[in-house]
């Protein structure tokens, strides 16, 4: 009985297709992947389109843009308590976010909030995933289309197409991001 359950847990896998290029989009993927890997699941992450930016050596290219996500909760990491509680996205007209420097401000705010909450830096979280044996695959076609070179990416990632990803993962797929 225990042998059959062992086999089940040994086979259990998590596969995530990551296709968004925002800094805020990367956290759920890496948090879920690292937790699943810590629970002995085999984790395959496939990065395609803007999602491949999550694996670049330089994580500074990852930004938080309030323009791309109308439902984003934007709270100030600094200021008095009453001010920190306000969701600025609900109070400020959306046109404000097209002003120059707003993406930079939102990215700074996001990073500061994550730091205050004790979350790891994205590059560190990625290393945690790597240490736990999470497999990263970058979509070859996207990489070529976007003009990136294999050495722009962190060590240990694989380059392959969608067919390779589906061949490595179980027949039933759970799609996320």
């Amino acid at each position, binding site marked *: 009985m225990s042998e059959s359950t062992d086999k089940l*847990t040994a086979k259990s896998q998590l596969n995530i297709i990551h296709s968004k290029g925002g800094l805020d989009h990367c956290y759920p993927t890496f*948090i*879920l992947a*690292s*937790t699943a890997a*810590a*629970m*002995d699941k085999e984790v395959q992450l496939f990065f395609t389109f803007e999602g491949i930016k999550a694996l670049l050596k330089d994580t500074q290219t990852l930004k938080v843009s309030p323009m791309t996500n109308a439902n984003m909760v934007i709270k100030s990491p600094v200021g008095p308590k009453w001010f920190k509680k306000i969701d600025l996205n609900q109070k400020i007209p959306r046109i404000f976010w097209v002003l120059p420097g707003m993406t930079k401000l939102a990215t700074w705010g996001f990073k500061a909030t994550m730091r205050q*909450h*004790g*979350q*790891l830096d994205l590059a560190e979280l990625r290393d*945690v995933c790597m240490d*736990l044996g999470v497999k990263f695959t970058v979509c070859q076609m996207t990489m070529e289309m976007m003009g990136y070179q294999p050495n722009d990416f962190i060590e240990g990632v694989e380059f392959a197409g969608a067919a390779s990803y589906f061949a490595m993962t179980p027949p039933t797929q759970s799609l996320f991001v």
Partner: protein
Amino acid sequence: MLIKIVGFILNGIEEVKLLDLPCPMPIIRIKKYLVECPGVRKFNVSVNDQGALKDIPAFCQQQKLHCCLLEDGEVIRFQISR
């Protein structure tokens, strides 16, 4: 604090402190500890991430570990044994 010291003297149970670490770090640190210290049969963990109150027992159940809640509140303490 006194309970911890007495606990250590009586049982030699190590206290793994995972304070101020949000999800997913408590689980990852516990897993690391389990892998790095295969000789340890029993240890305590203390966390203050409220999500860990449900996550640690779930993790232990999945990993076939015994988990016992010692303290609930601002700081949550579990005793984990294998």
